[in-house]
């Protein structure tokens, strides 16, 4: 993973932030994790401790992208990594599918376009074109109170967030996604993914892939 700048300045109505991709475990260790990534009524952040980000950064090909204030304060993060062993999405073949495991912005920085910046820099890596990138949205993990939105509005917001980077909604019978109609699977198929792999992805989504 190289060639592409790891760092951009991102302008927001609340001021400029630095967005840094492919952060290493050592880099993350020097940063301050915003206290708002914690437990709230009806909502718990995906990662409440900095060392969770550090662990992800150490995984093969993983990309931990951070949004930072000038005081090295982490106010947003995105995590791209291979699915866990045993997950359905591993069955397509080694290192073909990667999951956007988390994308989260501290409550006080929401609606400032920070998440868009994180996704854009994450999806600008060359290896993305060799992969099927996916994200699953489960409504029970969404900060509906913090966002002041209904589940359906939050779902639409996710689509608007990911679509400009080439994601689209995919149907699947994966049981967790099917549990609630507002849950969603979004995917982005890289340019170098073969037709055979695309077809296999379709069968896999409906658990009909013969491996």
């Amino acid at each position, binding site marked *: 993973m190289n060639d592409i700048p790891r760092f951009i300045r991102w302008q927001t109505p609340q001021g400029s932030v630095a967005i840094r991709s492919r952060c290493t475990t050592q880099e993350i260790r020097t940063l301050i994790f915003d206290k708002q990534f914690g437990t709230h009524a*009806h*909502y718990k952040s995906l990662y409440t401790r900095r060392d969770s980000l550090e662990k992800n950064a150490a995984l093969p090909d993983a990309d931990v992208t951070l949004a930072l204030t000038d005081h090295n304060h982490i106010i947003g993060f995105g995590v791209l990594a291979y699915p866990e062993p045993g997950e359905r999405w591993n069955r397509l073949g080694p290192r073909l599918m990667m999951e956007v495991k988390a994308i989260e912005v501290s409550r006080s920085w929401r609606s400032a376009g920070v998440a868009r910046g994180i996704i854009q820099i994450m999806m600008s890596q060359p290896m993305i074109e060799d992969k099927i990138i996916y994200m699953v949205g489960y409504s*029970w993990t969404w900060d*509906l*109170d913090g966002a002041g939105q*209904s*589940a*359906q509005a939050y779902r*639409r917001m996710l*689509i608007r967030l990911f679509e400009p980077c080439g994601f*689209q*909604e995919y*149907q699947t*019978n994966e049981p967790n996604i*099917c549990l609630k*109609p*507002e849950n969603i699977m979004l995917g982005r198929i890289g340019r170098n993914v073969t037709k055979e792999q695309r077809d296999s992805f*379709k*069968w896999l*989504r*409906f658990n*009909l892939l013969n491996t």
Partner: protein
Amino acid sequence: MRYPKEVVLKEGREAVIRPLQKDDEASLRRFYAGIPEGDRWFMRHDVMDPGVIAKWMDEIDKDKVFSIIALSEERIVGHATLHMRKFGSTRHIGRFRLMVLPEFRYIRLGTWLLLDLIQLAMDKGLSEVRSDFVVGIEEAAIEAAHKFDFFEKAVLKDYVKDQQGNHHDLLIMIKRLHKRWGDY
């Protein structure tokens, strides 16, 4: 909502879901001609009357009925509708109707159509959806509704009659559409 939606059914059969369009009239007629007479009997309208489907086509884009179809190899194999009222005490409730060709039943096509209608109803801001089923006739649809947390609101005992004059219960099922955490 993004269409067309590609779904794979049990046994690997494929279908595409998309909204009904003005130029689907002839295909929709063929679809309903393929529905057994015994099933058509329980519909609210006589779909073999040419005026009925023509009226449905007129209602496209009028914001009162949303019609989606499932296609397999260019043929309509399922049709589902969400009916909404623009006024009055039940404007918060949508009503679903769903029909699937016999050879496409029990392979989850109805489930995918139902899921799509639920998402449509949520997008429209409805708080409940209702669907009525004839007990002993529409078992596949009742099974699909249960999967999506529809619950039995009422049973009208011996309310409808089949063509042979036998009575059947009419089951009214409701699903609440959750919006916020407090609703769960």
